[in-house]
């Protein structure tokens, strides 16, 4: 019977109900989208690094596992040192230059890269021939409307699209190593070194052995690096997620507070009626809280559906910039956050309803 009353109350003011549900849905979508993009961006980076086929990666000195790369401090003579180590069968270096976040341009030795990873699978065109030639992946090409022969200005250079490759390997934008070294002014220097071993199970051991000749540079086995690719290792991202969650929760709280406060004011007489016929304060509070709970649950469900909308939007409008994953476990967290925020928002209006004097409420116009 009470559920019938709650449903009747919600359907009696459909616009207010709809707006409340939408506001909570936006709160949930904000959280799920941010978490989804964080996971998607990290996982796509991880997948691209893994697809190179290397067993060890050497990063610049002083860089952390998750820091962005935009310098080339390692001499390419390191490659010789690395190749001289036991079990090393191939090594190739790259230069990475950051562009507008989250893009970066990677210079690589295409022949060495092919030996290590099998090279790119081209959907159109092929490896660069000239220094101004550039290979982009299909997502980047789609997002920027590029095709073979297109010109694109990045850093200070005008580049010519020579190949459009399948995504998911190394980087989205690649040029010849020497070309990028010259453009960024670091000839003979590298940002990263990828190392392939004859026995991948020896990766940890060889990585440790490599630290001495490389002056304790950041040498990681690929598996260790993959484990390090997590949101908890990106301090700023983790903080940003919590800030967005806090903002989203406050928005949900305010919306529910206003909706329920208005509802309590509008239903003053009805609350008086329920109390007059023997409804306890607990019952009145229970009605409001159940209404809020229903709004929060509906908002969460709509929010989850909207998240698929943002995912679709990103996939079709900015596939190279933002990758959004569906992180199912966060459905529960986002729902819980929405419910807690909404319930907190209903407390003050609920207390107002509970404290209403019956006779005054019954004479309310």
């Amino acid at each position: 019977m009470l559920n019938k009353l709650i449903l009747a109350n919600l359907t009696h003011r459909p616009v207010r109900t709809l707006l409340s549900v939408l506001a909570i849905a936006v709160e949930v979508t904000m959280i799920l989208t941010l978490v989804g993009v964080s996971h998607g961006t990290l996982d796509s980076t991880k997948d691209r690094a893994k697809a190179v086929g290397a067993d060890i990666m050497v990063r610049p000195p002083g860089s952390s596992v998750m820091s962005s790369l935009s310098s080339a401090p390692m001499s390419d003579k390191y490659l010789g040192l690395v190749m001289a180590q036991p079990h090393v069968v191939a090594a190739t270096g790259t230069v990475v230059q950051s562009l507008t976040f989250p893009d970066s341009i990677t210079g690589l030795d295409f022949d060495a890269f092919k030996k290590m990873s099998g090279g790119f699978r081209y959907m159109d065109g092929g490896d660069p021939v000239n220094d101004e030639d550039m290979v982009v992946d299909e997502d980047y090409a789609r997002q920027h409307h590029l095709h073979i022969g297109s010109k694109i200005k990045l850093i200070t250079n005008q580049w010519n699209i020579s190949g459009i490759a399948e995504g998911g390997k190394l980087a989205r934008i690649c040029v010849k190593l020497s070309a990028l070294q010259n453009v960024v002014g670091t000839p003979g220097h590298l940002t990263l070194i990828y190392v392939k071993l004859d026995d991948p199970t020896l990766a940890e051991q060889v990585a440790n052995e490599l630290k001495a000749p490389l002056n304790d540079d950041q040498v990681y086995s690929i598996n260790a690096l993959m484990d390090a690719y997590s949101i908890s290792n990106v301090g700023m991202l983790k903080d940003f997620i919590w800030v967005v969650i806090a903002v989203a929760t406050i928005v949900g709280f305010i919306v529910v507070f206003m909706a329920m406060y208005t509802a309590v004011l509008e239903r003053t007489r009805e609350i008086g009626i329920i109390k007059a016929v023997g409804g306890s304060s607990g019952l009145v509070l229970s009605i409001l809280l159940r209404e809020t709970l229903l709004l929060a649950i509906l908002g969460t469900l709509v929010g989850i559906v909207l998240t698929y909308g943002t995912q679709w939007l990103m996939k079709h409008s900015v596939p190279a910039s933002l990758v959004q994953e569906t992180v199912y476990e966060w459905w529960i967290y986002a729902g819980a956050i929405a419910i807690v925020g909404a319930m907190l928002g209903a407390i003050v209006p609920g207390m107002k309803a509970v404290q209403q004097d019956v006779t005054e409420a019954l004479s309310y116009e």
Partner: protein
Amino acid sequence: MSDAVMGAEHISAVSTGASTMIRVRGLTKVYHVGDVEVNALRGVDLNVARGEFVAIVGASGSGKSTLFHILGGLTPPTAGTVVIDGKDLGGMTNQQRTELRKSTVGFVFQKYNLLPTLSAEDNIKIVEYIGGRSTDFTPEFQDVLKLLGITDRMKHKPRALSGGQQQRVAIARGIVNKPAILLADEPTGNLDSQNSAAVLGVIKNLNERTGQTILMITHDPEAASYASRTVHIRDGQIV
């Protein structure tokens, strides 16, 4: 001798009898409006026997609505004794007064006070639910609905009902949990003469056929004439 005086004179005779449903002694109620003290009731004595239909008649500001609110457990008395169906309202907590309204008192208000979002049927059932009873209407209650003439209007929401129909639904709601007393506050105050007569006829009929104790507050002598006894109130005192 007026009914009111007769009622006052008979207080001592019925005050301890088993047939007394309402016993009021020296009831006072003082309101504070800002710094001003308002004496709404000044020592009211009243007895209502079980099965009686009593009309409390008084002008606006006479204290009749305050008496209604105290008898219904909607507001506490300042001093005096109020016993309804053996339950002493003096010193009752809010929770106890809520329990009283749930189990002992039924209300009919001037403005019907039906929940606008629920159908007529659900307006009655929610009171059964709050009273902790089954929400299935008993055959006996179905007969009451027939008596009230609203069986074919039960699925309608209040806005689809006339004033007279809404008041009859409110009466059904007021008695569905078989309260010891039914308190009606100006039940015809918002109705035209034809609907007023119909509603008052229904209340009288209900009293005669089911023995429901009814206390009706009104300013209208014609409405009061339907009651079996009339008590007059003026300036917070029974006269």
